[in-house]
Structure formats: C-alpha cells, structure tokens
C-alpha cells in the first residue's frame, strides 16, 4: 500500500517552488522533492505542516493508493 500525495499540484497552484515550501515547513528542499516523488513518507507532524502551508487538510493532500482504486 502506497501513500499518494498532491503536493506538486497544490504547490504549483499557489506558485510555490520546492524551496519556498521547504522554507515554510522548515525542511530541506530535498525532503520536499523526496516526498513529492513518493520516495519518502513524511511523519504525521510534517504532513500536517505541509497541509497547513498549502491551505488544506491532510486528507486532501495525501491519500492511500487503495482509496483511489475504490473510487
């Protein structure tokens, strides 16, 4: 089971670079890159921080792969 995310789309919507988002949540740009590519699953704390920075809820930003299949 994989954790999918929509960070890239919402970041683009707000015209934020990976660096901007990284600065907003206090991580390195490489961490945002790894999360966006699905290579790193963030902690609950970082997931909430990312969601808050992008002005949305965690459930809107992340979803489990099987949830998408059910839809």
């Amino acid at each position, binding site marked *: 089971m994989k954790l999918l995310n929509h960070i*890239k789309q919402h970041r683009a919507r707000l015209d934020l670079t990976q*660096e901007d988002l990284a600065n907003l949540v*206090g*991580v390195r740009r*490489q961490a945002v*890159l790894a*999360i966006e590519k699905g290579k790193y699953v*963030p902690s609950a704390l970082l997931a909430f921080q990312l969601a808050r920075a992008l002005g949305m809820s965690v459930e809107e930003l992340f979803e489990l792969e099987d949830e998408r299949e059910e839809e």
Partner: protein
Amino acid sequence: MTGTSVRRLPSADWFAIGIAVAALFLQYVFPLAAGVVVLAVFAPSILREIKVLDDGDEWTTGIMHRAGFHGLLAVGTLISLNYLLVATGWFQPSEMNQRPINLETLHKAVIWVFLVSYLIQYWGARHGVFRILLAVSLTGLAPLTYSLKHEIELEGYFLAASLVHLVAIAGLAFLVRRWPRIGAGVMLLVIAVFLALGMDSVVTPVVNEARWGMLNVWFQLGLVFGVTSIAIFRESGAKTG
C-alpha cells in the same frame, strides 16, 4: 526550479568528504591519515546525532539512520561469515592473517557501506552510483602518493593495475548512467568472478603481502559494487513493480 531532481548534499557532508578524500590520498604518506578518513565519514552524522550540527530535517535524519543500519548489517554478516569459515575449518590461519575477516576489514566494510548507502539514498540510485563509481575510479591513483613520498619508481604491473582500475571503473560508471540494469549486472558478475578467485586466497594461508593487499582491494570493490548494484535493481524494481 519546479520538478528538478538535482539534490545537493549538505555543505557539512561535502566538507567532510573533501577531508576524507584528501586523507585517503595522504594515508600512504602519513599513516595517521587513515584514521582521519573514518572520522571524516562519520563526523557529520555524529554531530547531527548529538545536535551540535543542525542542518538537516527528518528526511536527512532518516537516511542517516538507514545508512547506519546498512553498515551494521554488513558488519554483522561479515562477523557471522568469520565464525562460519573458522568453525567449519575452511580457513587455515597464517602469519599474515589469523582470521579470515579482521578488524581492518570490518572497519572498511562499515565505512564503505555507510557512505555509499547514504549517498545513494540522497542522490537516488542512478545518479548516486554514477558519481560514486567515478570517485572510486580515482582512488586507483591513491597508492601513487606512496611512490611520491618514497621517491621510488613503481613497477609496471602496479602502474598498469592503477590505470586499469581508473579506466575500467570509470567505464562502468558511464555504463550504469546509460543502462543502469546492465551496469548493475556487470558489477554482480565481477563480484562473482572475484569471489571465486578470492575465496581460494581466503581459505588457504596467505603469506604474500602483495596478494593480501590485492584481496583487500577486491573486498572493498566488492562491497561498493554489491551495495550499488542492489540499489540499482531495487530502484528499477520499484519503478516497474
């Protein structure tokens, strides 16, 4: 900026790697430099762990811990192999080596596995392996500093070995960049051949210092090739799977 996949190592890591490489070349001139290599490799992680260095985040901490775990697995496997070779009577002690796997070997195993694992996780398998192999190809020149220090002319065989090391591994690096899985397959094949040749030297008494030194080089190359080829196959498996 968006969508770029360039990953820069923290500057503390670059600084430490610079010191490690310099010490690697200088160890033939100043034996103390060998210890500096180890310190330089682990210093950023130690400083991060005791919170003196605060340049990372949970992702950097995660890959650092994972690299440490991989180093531990490598050392644990080698210690088990050590007991196995001695207990089964396959290994016959000699003046040069009382045990098939000594402290120096474990020391090299943990440094290489930790460093390679850390860099690959940071850069990604394909870019990481390419850069690591290029760097490893340059280490073929390191023993030349010994000849400069002692002002001796190297034997043709030794020079040829350094040149082959440089060219062959650099070639492998470019092969991995172009065709990662083929490159990884070649590395596994090289390990298999060296293992077949090297095992004979491990289980029989080694009295020749040059032969022991060559085994040492093979062992380190085997470690690098093993870890990097596993990383390539894992990444390509994750993409296709």
